[in-house]
Every structure is written in C-alpha cells, then in structure tokens.
C-alpha cells in the first residue's frame, strides 16, 4: 500500500511519514496541495492521501476538489486540528473519505484501515 502525506509542516511530514512506514506503507511527502496535484498529474498514484487542511499555495480543500475532478480514486483522508466546523464540513464535502485529528496515531490509522477494508 502506498501513501502520500501532504502537509506544510516539516515535523508533521517526518512524523506522519515514519508512522505510515512503520505500519507498512510505502510513503512519500509533499509540502502543499499544489505539489500533490502535480504528482497525480504527472502519473503517480497513491492508495491513500493524508491531506492537511490549512496549507499555503493550495490548501487541502482545494487540492481534494481538484484531485476528485481529475478522477483520482485514492482514499483521501483529511488531517486537521481545526475546530471550525464549517471549514471542516467544506473540507469533507470536497471529497474526503474521512477526516482525522492531527497528529495521526497508530490507533486512528488502524481503525481507518479496518473501515476501508470493509468498504
């Protein structure tokens, strides 16, 4: 399984990347939504995309929308510490499979994988 971490924070990219690697994912990381869209446009694909909501250049909501418009079928999971419900709702409606709280934990990802497997 492959995963793309999309987050403007280097600490978060490093930690989430390592966590996903330990859980068996082949992992890549980019700094913002535009870079994520560029990767998919260039032909790369990932089973999972862990998308931060608030990023410069292109935020998670816009990136998710663009990826879905491109026909990307990856499981896109929002990752945010934002407590603004309206903004989170817009993020989910852009095309997320789920929205998890930041920072990601082993339990949260294991739970997510179980849900996805049942799909």
């Amino acid at each position, binding site marked *: 399984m492959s995963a793309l971490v999309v987050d403007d924070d*280097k*600490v978060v990219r*490093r*930690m989430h990347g390592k966590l996903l690697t330990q859980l068996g994912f082949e992992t890549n990381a980019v700094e913002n939504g535009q870079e994520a869209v560029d990767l998919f446009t260039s032909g790369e694909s990932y089973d999972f995309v862990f998308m931060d909501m608030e990023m410069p250049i292109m935020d998670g909501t816009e990136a998710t929308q663009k990826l879905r418009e491109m026909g990307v079928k990856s499981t896109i999971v929002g990752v945010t510490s934002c407590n603004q419900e309206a903004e989170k709702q817009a993020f989910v409606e852009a095309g997320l499979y789920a929205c998890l709280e930041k920072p990601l*934990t*082993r339990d949260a990802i294991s739970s997510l994988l179980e849900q996805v497997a049942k799909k």
Partner: protein
Amino acid sequence: MEIVGQLQKQYVEFSTSLYREGFLDEQFIQLQKLQDESNPDFVVEVVSIFFEDSEKLINDLATAIQQQVVDFKQVDAHVHQFKGSSSSIGANRVKNMCIALRSFCDEKNLDGCLRCLQQVKHEYFLVKNKLETLFRGISHLKENIDSFFSFLIHHFFRRKK
C-alpha cells in the same frame, strides 16, 4: 555499574518530571515509539527540526505583530503552524500558549498578542532547554554503558588468556 544505575535513575526522574510539570504530553511517547533500528536518532532528528522551525516561526510572529498595520490573519497562520508542530512532538505547554495566542488573534487584541507571544517564547525556550538536557542525559548514559561493556569485554578476554 553503579554509575550507570545512578544515571538511569536520574534520567527516569528527570523524564517523569517533564510529564508531571506539563512540559511534555503523551504525544512525546508516540514520537519515541517511531524511533527504531532503521532510524536510531529519529527523536533527536525530529526535535531538531522542531527547534529550527520554531525559532523561525517566533521571528516571523514578532515581525508580523510589530507591523504598522497588523495582519491578524497572517499572525494566526504562523501560530496555527507553531501549534501544529508543538502538538506533534508533545510540547504541551507551548501548544497551550499557542491556543491562547490564537484567541487574541481572533479578537484582534494586539496587546494580548504581544503579551502572549512573550509567554509562547518563554515556554518554547523552557522546553528546548529541558529536551536538550534530556538528550545530554541519554548520551551520557549511553557513553557510560558503552564504557562499562568495553571494560567487561576487555576484562573477560584478559582473564581468558
């Protein structure tokens, strides 16, 4: 071996105090769990990134708050990022001060922001100092364990001869 035992005890006491006093939370334990044989210095590596990024963010925040016309949205963006990274490594008191600073940003309360930023800086430098002490302690312990085992091996082979 006694020195190793003493160092271990000091390390455990110091480490426990960091959680008890709220400097670190459970997330630091999660960070430690990410360290493995393929990345034996992962914790130090990530915390070093945190230190580097945090000091840049603190400077950016100070600059943003000191503008003639303060862009509170920009200030909030910096605080949001600082809150995110401090939360990720378990720097609990820094995270909580960032949450307080965000409230002042929401209210566009410049005096509140200025005061709170000083507290953010204070908490950051406190936890930085604590973590550097923790890592020095680990390094000292490892050196003593290595010396002890080198002594044992040397002593064992001398006796075998």
